């Protein structure tokens, strides 16, 4: 396969990933594996774990991070750009169409009633995601303090969310320094 054709295949793969995964975040991982390992052999099961670890520990959308890393490794800068465009293009197209018709749709009393039920469901979904992330991330008193502190500061409405994240990172760094000097 020529390089240009393979680059096109790479774009098409990430377009499919964007098109066929619902829910975002970790829900996209099985589809990513099917495309980049099973179908095309661009990476293997060991490397993909490393890529996920990296995609989750640097900021940003996980699927976009994965597209950029693999694209760059396989094809250089333009591979990264094409993978990124591929993974977000389905969202742009689909959501734009929905947004165009959304106001008209909501004027329909049936759809308005359905959305009453859907809104309640979303609250339950977000609560479930919060508890899941919490169970994974909160191990020990320090982490619990970080979670509670962030919750209270955010609910107070006076502190910027970005500042809360920066403060937590700073607290983690300070705790590391204090611990480090104790053990010496």
């Amino acid at each position, binding site marked *: 396969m020529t390089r240009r054709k393979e680059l096109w295949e790479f774009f098409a793969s990430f377009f499919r990933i964007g098109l066929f995964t*619902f*829910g975002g975040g970790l829900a996209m991982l099985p589809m990513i594996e099917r495309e980049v390992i099973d179908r095309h052999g661009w990476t293997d099961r060991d490397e993909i774990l490393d890529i996920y670890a990296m995609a989750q520990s640097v900021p940003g*959308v996980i699927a976009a*991070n994965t597209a950029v890393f693999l694209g760059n490794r396989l094809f250089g800068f333009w591979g990264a750009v094409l993978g990124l465009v591929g993974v977000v293009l389905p969202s742009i197209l689909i959501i734009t169409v929905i947004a165009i018709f959304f106001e008209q749709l909501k004027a329909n009393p049936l759809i308005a009633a359905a959305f009453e039920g859907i*809104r309640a469901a979303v609250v339950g979904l977000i609560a479930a995601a919060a508890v899941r992330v919490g169970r994974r991330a909160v191990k020990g008193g320090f982490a619990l303090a970080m*979670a509670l502190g*962030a919750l209270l500061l955010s609910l107070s409405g006076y502190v910027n*969310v970005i500042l809360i994240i920066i403060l937590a990172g700073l607290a*983690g*760094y300070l705790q590391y320094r204090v611990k480090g000097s104790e053990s010496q």
Partner: protein
Amino acid sequence: MIFVELFWSFFKIGMFTVGGGYAMLALIQQAIVEHGWLRLEEFIDIVAIAEMTPGPIAVNAATFVGFRSASIPGALVSTGAVVLPSLIGMLILSRFWSQYKDSPKVQAIFQAVRPAIAGLIISVAITLGAAVLSAGADGFNILGLVIAAGVFFAVYLKNVDPFKMIILCAILGLILFR
């Protein structure tokens, strides 16, 4: 200038979210409320739509908010801005990854940021929950509370697909709220 505001807001959202998915909601909610781009109720609708349509949630939300604020150019600017940190960050970090991943300093920072993000997601659930549950005719939406609790247990304990729960609750809404 709306495009600069959209770009800068969504660039920050992309840059300060670790872990993807729901972790971004707190930042998106804050940006929307701050600029008055959407009502809280519309934000909940976006989360539902983002969950029901394919693609990353943050990208879907960025496209929707951008389109509502400044049509198609707005959608493109917001979506580009939310993924730009991925492009910059991953291109730089993939060079240093081998040193970066085992650095105890970096590990320590993330061990504090991750639980903080969990706390932020809980605060989103509480804020949105309060908005939904106070929307009833008598100021308290008891059916909404029952639906939200049911979805929480089904998704958290039984691992039911969120997409299926949304469809089910749309049908419940048709029956109960008409």
